[in-house]
């Protein structure tokens, strides 16, 4: 089939760079305008194989010059639907690069193409041959496309008229994409890029959970795993849902066992306290449990001060990192704050009590409106006492948890009256001023009802302890 084209078509030409010295013309790109767009259409509206050019053709172009170029493909078929548009559109990049002497960079309204002098000498004198080759590849490689037609535009006025429509289509697509959730897919992605720092780390990237480093979203994982399934990003079949609320899946648990060499066999993707996600060495933000208020604070890498628990990001990161599942601490990527499933099994935003101001401002629009004023920053609270007062003043929903505790444990309440921080019965810990870090109490979440407290390198000063036998 390829014989009919005045150029060769092969994946081996991918990555072929056309330098200025060897360039016939440059099309679109950072110094001009253009776009590529695939639209799903009805069979009746698509004339299969038809090519339309609006503006000058390659043969009319002056060597060494730059022209705008827009490429629109209309596709139709029984299985063609709008959701497939972006997948097909992305292939335009790949297929145009298969053409010898044709270079395609970027995508959407950032496209940038070059045609080589050699290619024009060998007969690539019309965009029609290029468009016909692409249409052939579309139909061969993507059999759900039954009919396709192409419209190329090299006329600047026409492109300026059409480019806004294209942008509106991209925007609509992005909105739909952002609406993709864990329950909509059957595959998550894993990543081992930082396995050398964190050998037991199990990084699971889902539509509702970005990688801890913040760099890899579910789509990046999918794209990379498709190109190289054995590479650093790979598919994790979701398996069966064990618990949707906390985000526990059989596939993830199996992957956890495999990736951590047996160290961990359960991971709940949206849980803070129970079988939390492991924390690598690259996470952008670390969450920390503040037992005195039964809330969770978050501190990011850029915050140089100390959190209300008296610790800095680096100290907590050092303790949490390395690919461990550390109850009481959790590394996350900033974008996880935008997830609708953000630590949902532990109360989500209603459990959040503190963040550095810079971080809070960054994600402010993603905080539920009623919670925006209730999360303290370093300007509101620098230590646990001022944090407790802030939360009381603001009537933070966390107060309901305190009340529950008070009601459940009236005797302890009485017993700890002497302590200056009465009001909540969780173990009081004096945070060390530096270097030391107590591990948090294991939250066993019911069952035996026992509490395990592990203190490492801790200094604990207690004025009075009363231990009573259970009635």
């Amino acid at each position, binding site marked *: 089939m390829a014989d009919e084209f005045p150029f060769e078509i092969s994946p081996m030409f991918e990555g072929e760079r056309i330098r200025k010295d060897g360039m016939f013309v440059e099309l679109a790109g950072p110094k001009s305008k253009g776009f590529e767009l695939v639209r799903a259409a009805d069979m009746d509206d698509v004339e299969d194989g038809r090519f339309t050019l609006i503006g000058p053709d390659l043969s009319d172009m002056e060597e060494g010059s730059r022209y705008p170029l827009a490429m629109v493909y209309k596709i139709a078929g029984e299985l063609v639907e709008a959701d497939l548009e972006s997948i097909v559109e992305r292939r335009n990049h790949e297929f145009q690069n298969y053409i010898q002497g044709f270079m395609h960079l*970027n995508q959407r309204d950032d496209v940038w193409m070059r045609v080589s002098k050699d290619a024009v000498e060998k007969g690539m004198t019309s965009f029609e041959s290029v468009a016909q080759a692409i249409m052939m590849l579309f139909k061969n490689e993507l059999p759900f496309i039954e009919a396709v037609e192409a419209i190329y535009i090299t006329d600047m006025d026409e492109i300026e008229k059409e480019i806004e429509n294209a942008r509106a289509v*991209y925007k609509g697509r992005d909105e739909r994409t952002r609406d993709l959730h864990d329950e909509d897919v059957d595959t998550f992605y894993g990543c081992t890029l930082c396995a050398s720092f964190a050998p037991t780390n199990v990084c699971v990237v889902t539509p509702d959970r970005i990688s801890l480093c913040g*760099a890899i979203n579910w789509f990046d994982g999918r794209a990379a795993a498709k190109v190289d399934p054995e590479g650093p990003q790979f598919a994790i079949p979701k398996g069966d849902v064990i618990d949707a609320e906390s985000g526990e899946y059989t596939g993830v648990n199996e992957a956890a066992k495999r990736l951590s060499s047996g160290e961990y066999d359960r991971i709940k993707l949206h849980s803070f306290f129970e079988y939390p996600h492991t924390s690598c060495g690259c996470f952008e933000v670390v969450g920390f449990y503040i037992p005195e208020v039964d809330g969770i604070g978050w501190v990011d890498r850029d915050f140089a001060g100390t959190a209300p628990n008296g610790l800095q990001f680096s100290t907590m990161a050092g303790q949490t990192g390395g690919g461990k599942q550390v109850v009481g601490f959790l590394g996350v990527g900033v974008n996880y704050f935008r997830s609708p499933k953000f630590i949902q099994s532990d109360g989500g935003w209603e459990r959040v009590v503190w963040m550095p101001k810079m971080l809070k401002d960054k994600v402010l629009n993603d905080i539920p409106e009623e919670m925006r004023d209730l999360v303290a920053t370093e300007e509101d609270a620098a230590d646990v006492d001022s944090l407790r007062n802030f939360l009381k003043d603001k009537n933070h929903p966390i107060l309901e948890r305190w009340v529950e505790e008070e009601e459940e444990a009236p005797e302890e309440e009485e017993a700890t009256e002497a302590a200056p921080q009465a009001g909540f019965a969780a173990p009081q810990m004096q945070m060390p001023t530096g270097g030391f870090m107590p591990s948090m109490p294991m939250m066993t979440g019911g069952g035996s009802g026992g509490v395990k407290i592990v203190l490492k390198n801790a200094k604990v000063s207690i004025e009075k302890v009363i231990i009573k036998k259970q009635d």
Partner: protein
Amino acid sequence: MAKIIAVTGKGGTGKTATTSLLIRQLTKGDKVVLAVDADPDTNLPETLGCDTSKTIGDIKEYMHDERDNLPPDVNKESILEGKLYEILEEMPGYDLLVMGRPEGSGCYCYVNNLLRGIMNKLVTNYDVLIIDAEAGLEHFSRKIFRNVDDLVVVTDGSRRGLRTAERIRELVSELETDVSNIYVIANKVTDANRERISSTAEELGLELIGMIPVDEMIVERDLAGEPLFDLPDDSVAVQEVERIAQKLGL
């Protein structure tokens, strides 16, 4: 497959000048060269007479800062590739890429991984890659460049400069990068130090492939801040670099 040559050495020995002259020599033939400035401290573009402002460091920072604002399903490799092509300065006979500033405090594992893939593809478009590398060889330890055919250490007449060559050789053995050959070029050579350089190099077991004499034309241009790329053919340094290029099989 492109031949990859890395030029390194102690600061002030003239490694950037030597790199420029090697590039100058190569562009006289029909080889397509990719010149890479991988030393945040030197000025290869200026020495070549090339006006460039954006660096790989800038686009890595862009990828890092913009990642949450980019469309979620956008292909980030394709974005990074496009950005890289934008900063690739196209000069007659060669392209120039500047690595630029070091990374910020975030995690760059992912961006570097994408960059490695793109660089591997890009390199296949050239006959020769010449890298002006800082002595710490950071970009090599990060495997942005997979392997090096010839590592050329530029030294001045001092024993310290030759010691640096020795240390770089040790450093290379610790890197996971494959380096096929390590050579030494002595720069700013005078009749007074010529013999001693030879004997010290021999004593340290270093393979000396050229001795570039002090060149008044270079001294003048350095003082005036003018590029070295258009030095005339009768410059003594140019002539020695021509011989060195032959020895490197270029």
